[in-house]
């Protein structure tokens, strides 16, 4: 073996560009050491290919062998047959060429346009190969995890990442929250973007829970000067020892019909009740919610409103639920939207924690209302900046959980989140959606998601919806279905040169915190130096 850490696997025996190539394993390589998701290089005659194992299978030369199997207790016979009469096959999907032609030498890895020739040698990718493809940690690239069974770092280009809306998927307990926290740290360190996080379960601001262990530190503990924690439930935050920066209150007059549209299902409202909201809003204006709740019966409806008794009752019952939410007041004493924008403008990331109000009604209402108004501000400022040729506001990434509640097909084209997802980043705002049921998200929205990061999914419909639109769905499906139940993910789409499988970077040990912080500070110091230099230019 010439290269020390490239291990020979076998030779290419057949294949096609569309379906990938078949590699016949050498008898010295055991199928049992293989795993889908591993990276492989193939030494073609003129080019080097880089790909991923997407399936592993067994072959026999003679079908008789399967009918009258040899005596397996005889190790001699088994050893002779291994790799000759019986052999292992790898299905490898080549994605990139990494050397050989001029373009890939000058411009780095290129998408494949052909397949390696017959009997080309396949090796496990070496550390250098992986670094070549996924890049080294630098000011744009962030170490997000490692390949399965390797110690090399796999990096994600976050500058590219934030150019689109992105999604993190996976069934419950697979590591979405941990991965998101890691990514948010990355965004905070490596991108120009600033984050607004709607933190339904109080996991991102101060501390997060860890299965079978002590809580882990979250963003504000690690980066106190870059993160502000807003809370809906001051008492609860205080009890958890969180140092908060702002207490959020919502006024009745801030709630608009669109918020009610989203809440239709959770509040059990009829179609007609939602229609009535629009009418009432037109009639009463900002105070519509209070005015509606004050109505005793349809008799008291103002002129020109045609709302049935049962519809009004249905609506009033729903609105009463909202009124009971403790953070809602007649008029909000403080300007939450203003304060959030103020922080974001200074480059401070905002985590809004919900305290005890983890019910879906609170979450949808608050996230939607605030996002709608913040987005309106961004829109205005971006348009103004374009008109006057001045600086646009900082790119903003909004993180929401339970994304399908905001982006399901029934509501996706009526809500602000649907709009943001579809507009890409026209107004410098993108989404980071987290969901365990991606099949609940509208197809069109899914197709607009730039980079998808998915942990294990086992529901067929969820898998299909995440992989929809990829050219090698079948292959990726087998990779996705075989991820470990925790801390492993498949990443594909806009920000990565090819689909990649990672073991997510470890989060929660003292070393991991030190690692996150020190890299960040080095980066920030560099930035400070740069800023000072620019002062004198």
């Amino acid at each position, binding site marked *: 073996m010439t290269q020390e850490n490239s291990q020979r696997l076998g030779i290419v025996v057949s294949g096609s560009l569309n379906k990938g190539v078949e590699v016949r394993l050498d*008898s010295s390589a055991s199928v049992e050491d293989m795993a889908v998701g591993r990276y492989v290089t193939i030494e073609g005659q003129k080019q080097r290919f880089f790909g991923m194992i997407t399936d592993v299978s067994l072959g026999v*030369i*003679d079908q*008789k*062998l399967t009918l009258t199997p*040899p005596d397996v207790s*005889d190790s*001699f*016979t088994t*050893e*002779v*047959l291994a*790799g*000759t*009469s019986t052999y292992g096959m790898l299905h490898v999907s080549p994605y990139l060429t990494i050397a050989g032609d001029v373009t890939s030498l000058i411009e780095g890895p290129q998408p494949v346009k052909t397949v390696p020739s017959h009997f080309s040698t396949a090796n496990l990718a070496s550390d250098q190969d992986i670094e070549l493809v996924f890049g080294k940690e630098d000011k744009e690239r962030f170490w997000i995890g490692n390949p399965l069974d390797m110690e090399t770092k796999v990096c994600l280009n976050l500058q590219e990442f934030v150019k689109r809306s992105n999604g993190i998927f996976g069934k419950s307990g697979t590591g979405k929250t941990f991965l998101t926290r890691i990514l948010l740290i990355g965004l905070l360190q490596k991108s120009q973007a600033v984050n607004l996080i709607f933190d339904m379960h109080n996991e991102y601001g101060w501390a997060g829970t860890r299965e079978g262990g002590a809580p882990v530190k979250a963003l504000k503990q690690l980066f106190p000067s870059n993160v502000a924690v807003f809370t809906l439930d001051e008492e609860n935050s205080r009890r958890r020892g969180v140092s908060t920066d702002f207490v959020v209150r919502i006024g009745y007059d801030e709630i608009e019909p669109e918020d009610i549209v989203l809440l239709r299902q959770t509040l059990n409202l009829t179609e007609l009740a939602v229609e009535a909201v629009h009418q009432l809003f037109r009639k009463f204006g900002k105070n519509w919610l209070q005015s509606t709740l004050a109505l005793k019966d349809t008799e008291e409806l103002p002129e020109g409103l045609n709302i049935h008794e049962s519809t009004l009752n249905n609506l009033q019952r729903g609105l009463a639920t909202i009124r009971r939410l403790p953070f809602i007041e007649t008029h909000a004493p403080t300007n939450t939207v203003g304060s959030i924008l103020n922080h974001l403008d200074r480059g401070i990331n905002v985590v809004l924690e919900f305290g005890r109000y983890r019910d879906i009604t609170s979450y949808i209402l608050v996230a939607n209302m605030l996002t709608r108004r913040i987005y309106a501000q961004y829109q205005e400022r971006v348009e103004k900046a374009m008109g006057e040729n001045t600086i646009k506001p900082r790119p903003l990434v909004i993180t929401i959980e339970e994304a399908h509640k905001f982006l399901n097909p029934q509501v996706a084209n009526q809500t602000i989140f649907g709009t943001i997802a579809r507009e890409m980043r026209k107004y410098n705002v993108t989404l980071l959606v987290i969901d365990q049921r991606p099949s609940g998200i509208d197809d069109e929205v899914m197709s607009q998601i730039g980079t998808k990061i998915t942990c294990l999914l086992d529901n067929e419909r969820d898998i299909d919806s995440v992989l929809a639109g990829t050219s090698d769905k079948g292959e990726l499906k087998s990779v996705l279905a075989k991820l470990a139940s925790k801390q492993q993910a498949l990443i594909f789409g806009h920000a990565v040169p090819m689909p990649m499988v990672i073991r997510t970077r470890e989060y929660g040990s003292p070393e991991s915190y030190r690692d996150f912080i020190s890299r960040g500070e080095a980066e920030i110091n560099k930035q400070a130096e740069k800023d000072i230099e620019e002062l004198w230019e």
Partner: protein
Amino acid sequence: MEESMQMQRVGEVIEASTTEFVAQCYELYQSPPLGSLVKTRDLLVELYGIVYNTTTTSLEPGRRPIARGKDEASEEEIYRSSPQLLELLRSESSALVVGHNQGDKLHHYLPPKPARIHGFVYLCPSEEVKEFSQSFNFLTILINTHLPVSQDELIAACLRQMSQAYEDRYAFLVAAGKELAVLLGGEFNQLKAILERIRQ
């Protein structure tokens, strides 16, 4: 080539064709073992053969030996009381040509010409067996020839013999087995029969 001392001379060619040669053994019953690698020389070319058959018959064609031991106490007594028997009988070994050495290059295919009559026949020493079996190409010849003995038996005997030249006999036999597995392809039953005969 200097005739080395350890090279064991076993007989002399008495019949030759392109594909095989027959050696008469110098001593009755002192034939090279089944499957062993032997060689003989035709001027510049050394021919290698694998012993596939050995016969012991009457020297005079048509005359068959008769039973003699009725009044003897043991089998040895028969030969002791009729010493002329050793002159009347002979052992002959047939070897299948599997390769040759020409100009110091080893080839695992048939030589241009057959062996010469009266060429001396030697049993190859371990070193030479090792060298010859660096390549398993000779197995193709064994597989593709029709012989009076069973092919499976011959191949197995040959590999068993050769393996004795190796310190790691097991590794040699596994390697040979793998070669056979490839050569025999779909003939799994034949492969199995051979493997059963060589397994350690």
